[in-house]
């Protein structure tokens, strides 16, 4: 306490001295560095400080039934995540959009003779949570439970019954379809979901990634329990599953649990590979009329797939152009310098058979044309010129400095394990990718963008009262 007081007094004295110094001194007599305390003062020390590193010991094996298992033991919190990832996303829907989503959502709606209420009570009595979700590539089930065996084991036993013998009861399916149809109705109230549906349809066309994951008003009513059972037997198989376990758990227990979960699943192989998604070869524009105060715009094109060797260069380039934070080019130019948008972002979505690049923005209708023209110009400039050395350095410093944040929590780790297992990445993938990002040169970013993104073949899809591709002559500013 007294030490801190002394320290504080020293600081106050130093600041006071500094003020007096500035007032009584004539600026031209001072070296600039002496006149103004450098800001921030802490810069040299944080520049020199070694970065922390969380050593993750990822262990991996294959179960007798053929599931890939990834396991990280973390002891500090008495909890366990058990995540199962299946190659069973909407890309497997075929002619029945929504089938993968419904199969996934129906797993805990009745199993092994237990009805939905009994299953829910079973987990909730234990304080456990079962979550499910379904995307284009993946379908997931995640159990979060306290790790003490009294709670963990009965929760896993219930999960095992769900995996082994889902009942897909017709009554619950009917209710779920009604809920889902209403969710689709609700999406029509707002511009965003309609826009992304239209964008995906235009970008992927007949490719399986073009299937609307949530189903359609036409597709959902016709889906029957028997189809769910067939989908489950085909895709929720041991060979098509990745099991990620993270938490306060010994390796012996992890082995036993993985065997238990894996052997509950139907036997079967991995789902066949999807055909690669092709890029659009000419510019396309599509506009949806909607009475919103903002016009929402998506533009982009198909670039690569998850495993392409240019991915690190594109990843770094995307970060500089429009990924995440305020210092990205798009955010700086369109929001910070001109106030045209609340948000503008670019992204690359690395999937098994595709990796589209997409820019999204929303802006007042009267500004939509100008914002679109500016955004196209910024993309074209970036493809033509690439990043400056300074931009590259900033992005790489950011990436290396933020690495520790990506594995800070058990939930972060289980997500990373799921991705590594699902896409067959090496266990050292996170480190390897970090290193690859650090080695990327500005020239490589430029080359990769020029190879994979052509500003004259961009797809533009928009929604709002007026087509932003047309100059807004009739629009008077509000």
């Amino acid at each position, binding site marked *: 306490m007294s030490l801190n007081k002394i320290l504080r007094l020293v600081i106050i004295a130093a600041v006071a001295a500094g003020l007096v110094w500035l007032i009584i001194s004539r600026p031209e007599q001072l070296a600039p560095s002496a006149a103004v305390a450098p800001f921030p003062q802490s810069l040299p020390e944080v520049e020199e400080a070694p970065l922390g590193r969380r050593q993750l010991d990822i262990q991996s094996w294959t179960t007798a039934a053929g599931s890939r298992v990834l396991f990280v033991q973390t002891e500090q919190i008495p909890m366990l995540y058990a995540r199962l990832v299946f190659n069973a996303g909407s890309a497997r829907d075929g002619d029945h959009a929504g089938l993968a989503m419904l199969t996934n959502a129906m797993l805990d709606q009745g199993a092994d003779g237990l009805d939905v209420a009994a299953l829910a009570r079973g987990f909730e009595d234990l304080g456990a949570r079962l979550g499910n979700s379904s995307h284009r590539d993946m379908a997931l089930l995640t159990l979060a439970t306290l790790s003490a065996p009294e709670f963990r084991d009965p929760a896993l036993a219930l999960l095992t019954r769900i995996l082994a013998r889902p009942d897909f009861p017709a009554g619950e399916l009917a209710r779920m379809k009604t809920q889902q149809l*209403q969710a689709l109705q609700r999406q029509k109230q707002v511009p965003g979901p309609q826009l992304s549906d239209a964008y995906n349809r235009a970008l992927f066309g007949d490719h399986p990634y073009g299937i609307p994951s949530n189903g359609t008003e036409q597709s959902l009513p016709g889906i029957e329990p028997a189809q769910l059972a067939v989908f489950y037997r085909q895709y929720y198989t041991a060979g098509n599953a990745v099991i990620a376990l993270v938490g306060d758990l010994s390796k012996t227990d992890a082995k036993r649990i993985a065997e238990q979960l894996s052997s509950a699943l139907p036997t079967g192989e991995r789902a066949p590979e999807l055909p690669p998604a092709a890029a659009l070869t000419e510019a396309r524009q599509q506009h949806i009329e909607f009475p919103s105060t903002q016009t929402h715009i998506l533009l982009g094109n198909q670039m690569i797939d998850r495993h392409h060797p240019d991915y690190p260069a594109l990843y770094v380039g995307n970060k500089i152009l429009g990924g995440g934070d305020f210092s990205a080019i798009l955010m700086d130019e369109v929001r910070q310098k001109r106030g045209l948008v609340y948000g503008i972002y670019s992204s690359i979505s690395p999937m098994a058979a595709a990796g589209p690049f997409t820019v999204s923005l929303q802006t007042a209708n009267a500004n939509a044309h100008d914002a679109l023209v500016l955004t196209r110009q910024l993309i074209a400039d970036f493809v033509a010129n690439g990043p400056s050395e300074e931009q590259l350095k900033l992005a790489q410093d950011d990436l290396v400095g933020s690495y520790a944040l990506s594995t800070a929590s058990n939930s972060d780790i289980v997500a990373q394990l799921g991705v590594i297992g699902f896409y067959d990445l090496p266990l050292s993938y996170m480190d390897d990718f970090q290193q690859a990002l650090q080695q990327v040169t500005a020239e490589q970013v430029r080359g990769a963008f020029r190879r994979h993104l052509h500003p004259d073949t961009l797809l533009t899809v928009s929604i709002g009262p007026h087509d932003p591709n047309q100059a807004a002559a009739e629009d008077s500013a509000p």
Partner: protein
Amino acid sequence: MRLFLMLSLLCATAAQAATAPPPTHDFTLDNGLRVLVREDHRAPVVTVMLWYKVGSIDEPAGRTGLSHMLEHMMFKNTRHLTPGDYSALVSRFGGQTNAFTSYEYTGYYQQYDASRLPLALELEAERLANLEIDAEEFSREVQVVLEERRQRTDDNPSALAWERFAAILRPGTGYAHPVIGWQRDIEQYTPQQAMAWYQEWYSPANAVLVIAGDVTLEQARAQTERFFAALPADPVPDRPTPRQAPAAGERRLSLSLPVQVPSLYMGWNVPSLATADNAADYYALMMLAGVLDGGYSARIESNLVRGRQLATGAGAQYGGLAREDGVFIMTASPAPGVSLAALEAALEQELDTLRTTPPSAEELKRVRAQMLSSSVFEQDSVFGQAMELGYLTIIGQDWRLADQLDQRLADVTPQQVSDAAKRFLTRDRRAVAEVRPLNQEGTQP
């Protein structure tokens, strides 16, 4: 019997985990800055949050949303930083940063590799002490905030419905206007108003600094002293002490909006932990919300969504942590063919059942088990831990609140839950909004 055993075990284990959080330190600088430090050494990361006790409920008419507008300006000019500098510095050191404004507070956060702690604190101290507002930057940022409002509210009829419901939910209080502000107010902000707001509320004694992650007390204290101790101790304006408000009388709102699906909002003015005559009321209301909507096996989901299939979705929640009174809220969407009136009657019927018949001990145990395991799961996130510490402290509660959770929940009797429904979920405390699609029955001419 076996179930009972398991529940007792659960409560014991979860409570143990929940009540033994990692070391937490709490000290106050001489200028009034309260500092909380949560040590969590799992990963080499740190979260720094600076919370100011000023939010939209503090704003006078005509200045709604000003706290949020000021939040945006805090990323622009300061004495040592020009626009873009702050973001570039945070990026260069691998940080993530953003801010949040709510009814009761404005908060700023930075997340980094733990070695960046001095920078994070220095940047926050700079923004606390040395903000400058450039008129041109300000008017550009007003446009950004208008875009934000269009995006979040004006183009989303559900959000619009909520905004209008909120306006009648707590009449005569600062909770009745939107956090982002009314459009007509946003359009008329001046840089002078924002600067005055900053000078009035942004002072060490009106703030709480939270440092969570791979940090020791010694490091946190030394760096906090280094950057904050010299800042002057400005006075904090007086605030009235919150008192429980009398029942406002029943309010009803009938809205026709461009929604595709009708919906129902019901809310009751109830005490919060801050205004309850007895803290037991707060825990009883928590349990009441849990019995109705504590998961998939709770009553609303079992009886209304699955059983009678009157709703495609419905929920109940108790907002009992607040600077002033709390609210108990139920929302629901009717299943196709079900009228809003029938849905409202069904929700009231669920409440009536509880008013006359106390819930079973098993239901309360299940709710308690879920609340306790949730508090274990929430320790997984350093950010979440910092949010909890900051939030509780800024609304005037003890950050050790979770330590009591197990015992407090165990003390709640079924009769108390029933009594809470009877005492607090009454007609004269209730506000109801019916939201219908345009051009349907009930549409106004």
